[in-house]
């Protein structure tokens, strides 16, 4: 087991290395011989993984699917820094391979992901979203490897969802996640589902580079990452979750102990350049999620109690955050379902510690057109009650044919004073069109 995670750690550090050094080089030279430039160890490792995958596919009736995306972002305003670009073109590749045997009692899943961004080297990256084995033994499922999972019920913010690190260069909504190495046990009972997670390795958050948009005014330097724990990224995190359905109620309780997924960004001077250093503290988090479903109403609640152990800020011992609200849907109005969403976000941390969603109202509407192409539209307005800054997000999607779909995304940041937490994004309003081809 230890050996397995050691090799997983090695693979992930190879990925890190690849993302920081090889990938940018490759883009710089616009050469397609990635493997040719990689050191021998990486090359061998890559070949090994590829070979295993090919063999697996050849030997068994396994399934291999994938998608390729082409994304174009146009920014409305000139960037704050002359180094940043006005538009960006980007391509993604994600493939999922899975294989079941013993009547589905055992499974392996491998989901590699890669993004190639025209300009931002930090946004160009590769990751293993999933790479795990699962064994099922009567009421118990055992998972070993990299997994991606989701906790929670609310729409405007995901408070209790803490297992996976956010892949922030993908999208500022934080819904894209990096694969988390873990051993986990799931136990199903008539009184709810229990899950236990042991996470021996930490994934650092990704941040846009100097030329990237949607970033802090100072660039985050991942080379200067610091940890509160002496064990650094090898700190053993663990988590426990219980979830259950009782009639119209879906409820969950979770506990997390380990490295906070959200770093504190500290200003440091590096060879006369000022950069931000991500500092990951230790955290204990107790989470509660509830949903009550009644007729056309969905009532949702998520809250967390966090016990901080922060040497830089010893005064902050505990903090509390919650998001709650409802969604009501009118069905079949000219065959379209129209939903209204209202959520209130609260966090008791103030001053510099306060997150963006500390006292905000999110109002949204969701259109489900019920046509053969599954057209949908979601528009959300988030208003900061104290600071008056506003954020608008519009997402729409539809299918073009059986293997092709289109997504449109628009984000508007309205902020006028430097104290506002959205101020650094004030010039980054953008319009994005994404074409996805499935194979």
């Amino acid at each position: 087991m230890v050996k397995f995670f050691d090799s997983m750690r090695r693979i992930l550090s190879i990925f890190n290395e690849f993302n920081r050094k090889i990938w940018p080089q490759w883009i710089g030279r616009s050469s397609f011989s990635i493997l040719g430039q990689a050191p021998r160890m990486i090359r061998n490792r890559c070949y090994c993984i590829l070979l295993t995958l090919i063999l697996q596919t050849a030997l068994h009736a396994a399934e291999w699917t994938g998608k390729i995306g082409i994304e174009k972002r146009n920014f409305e305003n000139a960037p704050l820094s002359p180094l940043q670009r006005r538009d960006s073109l980007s391509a993604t590749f994600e493939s999922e391979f899975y294989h079941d045997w013993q009547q589905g009692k055992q499974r392996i899943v491998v989901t590699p992901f890669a993004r190639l961004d025209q300009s931002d080297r930090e946004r160009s990256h590769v990751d293993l979203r999933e790479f795990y084995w699962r064994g099922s033994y009567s009421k118990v499922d055992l998972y070993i490897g990299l997994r991606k999972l989701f906790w929670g019920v609310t729409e405007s913010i995901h408070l209790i969802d803490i297992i996976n690190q956010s892949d922030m260069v993908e999208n500022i909504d934080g819904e894209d996640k990096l694969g988390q190495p873990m051993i986990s046990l799931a136990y199903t009972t008539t009184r709810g589902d229990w899950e236990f997670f042991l996470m021996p390795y930490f994934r650092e958050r990704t941040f846009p580079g100097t030329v990237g948009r949607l970033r802090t005014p100072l660039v985050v330097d991942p080379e200067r990452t610091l940890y509160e724990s002496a064990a650094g990224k090898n700190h053993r995190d663990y988590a426990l979750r219980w979830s259950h359905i009782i009639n119209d109620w879906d409820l969950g309780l979770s506990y997390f102990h380990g490295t906070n997924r959200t770093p504190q960004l500290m200003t440091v001077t590096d060879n006369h350049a000022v950069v931000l250093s991500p500092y990951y503290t230790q955290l204990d988090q107790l989470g509660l999620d509830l949903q009550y479903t009644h007729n056309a109403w969905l009532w949702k609640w998520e809250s967390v109690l966090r016990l901080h152990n922060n040497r830089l800020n010893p005064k902050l011992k505990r903090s509390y955050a919650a998001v709650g609200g409802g969604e009501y849907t009118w069905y079949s109005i000219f065959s379209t379902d129209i939903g209204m969403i209202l959520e209130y976000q609260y966090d008791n941390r103030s001053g510099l510690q306060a997150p963006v969603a500390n006292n905000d109202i999110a109002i949204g509407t969701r259109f489900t057109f019920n046509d053969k192409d599954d057209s949908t539209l979601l528009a959300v307005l988030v208003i900061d009650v104290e600071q008056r800054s506003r954020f608008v997000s519009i997402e729409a999607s539809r299918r073009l044919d059986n293997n092709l779909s289109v997504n449109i995304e628009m984000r508007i940041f309205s902020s006028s004073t430097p104290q506002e937490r959205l101020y650094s994004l004030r010039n980054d309003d953008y319009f994005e069109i994404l074409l996805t081809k499935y194979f």
Partner: protein
Amino acid sequence: MTLKFSILTLIVVLLSLVTSTTVFSNSELYNNRGLEIAIEADRRDTGFGDSSASIQMILRNRHGEVSHRELRNKTLEVENDGDKVIIIFDTPRDVRGTAFMSFTHKFEPDDQWLYLPALKRIKRIASRNKSGPFMGSEFAYEDISSQEVEKYRYKYIKNETFDGRKHFLIERYPLDQKSGYVRQKVWIDQSEYRIWKIDFYNQTDTLLKTLNFDDYQQYLGRYWRANIMEMKNHLTGKSTLLKWRDFHFNNGFTEQEFTRHALKKIR
């Protein structure tokens, strides 16, 4: 039409008065031939335990344009309640891996969840959406949900012979206020109690849709399943064809395979 509608309402009210007092007493059964037929059809389909099948869904609009979907279905029979159903989407590719789970109930609204594989997220969805279309098709959620005797009141109309079969024609009236229908005409054959045709009347009592069943096959020497189901919408000219195949019974499904955790593992 108002007269017709009010007479119908009167019938429904009368029926509800009659049946709500003692639904299953023997004398009522004997008098209420419609209910009797529905109970017999239900009895003949009880005890199948579980089933699985693959479904091809073919959507046609009035211009003859066609789009396809591939689904798989797992059903667990639940004693004294509605069935538990999981539907897995294989195509179109953008929704591949999406899974829909429904705990149907006899009296209360169904419980429904949707698993979204891209986010690994499970969403409980409102089941108020009975009359809404399922996957953009001509089938409403209530059409694909498990058909429980207790969901309707019944009335026997007459016998009718077509396609060389003798049928009972009964009318059934949804008890749920949120149903998209005011009544349904159902043709059930007299020898095996299989449904061959349903006419759906919307809330203004206009003939909205017709569902035809065909190519029945018998499983385990007892249970009949139609391989072909075609729903035609008379108002829009659209139609949806369901082609069922690979029916399997005795899969050994348990409640454990119909949980949120199981929904996340489904392929």
